[in-house]
């Protein structure tokens, strides 16, 4: 089992967290939606796995490259 950090590609604020702890996700699933430039920018699971931790809360300001969720893959 490996840990994989899902990172935001943009700076913005956390708009919606779409997963819960322990939830199984497939590759390509949306984990978190970031509001940036008035767009909903998804942070996507690069591999299938289970949500091991959620590192942000809705409304948090985040920067480009920041990890938002870790997956157990």
């Amino acid at each position: 089992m490996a840990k994989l950090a899902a990172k935001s590609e943009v700076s913005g604020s956390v708009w919606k967290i779409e997963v819960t702890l322990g939830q199984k996700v497939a590759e390509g699933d949306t984990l978190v939606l970031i509001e940036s430039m008035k767009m909903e920018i998804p942070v996507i699971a690069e591999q299938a796995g289970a949500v091991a931790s959620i590192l942000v809360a809705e409304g948090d300001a985040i920067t480009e490259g920041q990890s938002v969720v870790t997956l157990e893959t």
Partner: protein
Amino acid sequence: MTVQSQPDDLERRRAKALAMGGEAKLARRREQGFLDARRRIELLFDPGSFHEAGLLSTSVTPKDQARTPADGKIVGYGRIDTREAAVVSNDFTVMGASSSATNGKKIGHIKRVATQRGIPIVFFGESSGARMPDTMGARGMGTMLGADPTQYQRMRETPWAAAVLGDCYGSSIWYTCCSDFSVMRKGAVLAVSSPSLVEQALSETVDPQTLGGWQLHAETTGLVDRFVDTDEEAIAALRKFLSYMPGHNGESPPRAVPQGAGANAAGIGQLLPPRRTQVYDVRKIIAALADRDSLFELKPQFGKVAVTTLARLDGQVIGIVANNPLFKGGALDTDACDKITSFLVLCDSFNIPLVLLVDTPGFSIGPEAERRRAPGKIMNFMNALSLCTVPKLSVILRKSYGQAYLNMGGGRNSDEVAAWPGAEISFMDPHFAVRIVHGHQPDSPEFADALREMERDNSVYGIAEIFSIQAVIRPEETRDHLIRLLEVHQLRRTKGVGEHLMRAWPTSF
């Protein structure tokens, strides 16, 4: 020597040249799954069409003559899908395909013939750099380098396509950077200097893949256009790229038999999500618009907020530049500016009409963008579009804002602008504009009314009424609209040939 012995002598010399660096080295390559320099040529060209120049050439240094078949760089001509082309194939088994006096003349000859006669060049890159010790010392430098002032001159008279198929230092990296297209086999290395030289000079141990591996070039430098797993796939990519290109810049690209529309052509409108804030992958829209299986995307993992792809529309080669909202909402960053500029230069240099598909909130802003020289990159991109003399057609799919409206072909920056009915055009996002124009805060009662007003003003019908766009079209009408306008906008006066104002700029990506 008798007359009878001469043919035997010729055959003996030929056989020695064809044996390259010897069976031991060739066997080692086969075990690693790499093709040799001659096999690469065989697979590139139509069977039996290769005609070599300089089979019997060797090093000018007497002590090296016996061990330098073809002097390490095999050159000649052949046909790709019946069309003439030239090749330079580095033979790493012969002194690491190092650059020498003889093989420098061979490359110069091929470039001269290809340019003057109007045929593309393929470079199979795998070389160690300047031949040592021939190039050492002041006399060595003066003898080996600088005799040909056109050696690294690039005027884009004919298409050049390069493959990075091993260690590429010296001439292989320079010709890759001068080429219009490059493909890299994963595991190969493209770098100015080898790891061992870096280690000596900088006392820094560096892994070859970190120094110049495929991931670096795919994601960070963008210097290479496509990445493959095998030599065979690289050769297929070279052939495919050249299928979109004319033989030279004085003719149009070859027209293919129309294959009909791609999947989803009728349902193209459904590929756009209902809410304006939702993202989607524009590559699905491109696949639905273009001819079936006709896409050939360049630099797919670099500057991903924009897509640059060759394609065909009713059999005609086109270049598509599209914003991709899937990444950063389609906001144009400096990598995307560089990628688009390079693609505009490619298309304009080889008489390929352009289609721009627009959905962008604007350019990426902020401290990081400024540090990456965003203003300069934006103007390079803008000037490149202005200098294109091939037909330019743009379609605003959803959003076009600010300076990016001009960069993506707004106003007279494309020959015809169309918009889908739900598109919105303005100087900045209405949410920001309400605050700047009226000073209303988002939670104030006046904000919603002012926002509604701003949003109504952004509708495409306002700009269609004053003829600053030429058509409002339904998504499913887009393919036919573009095909029809490509007919209208053919360069009739010059038989499909543009002015190539950027033929020498920028040299490399």
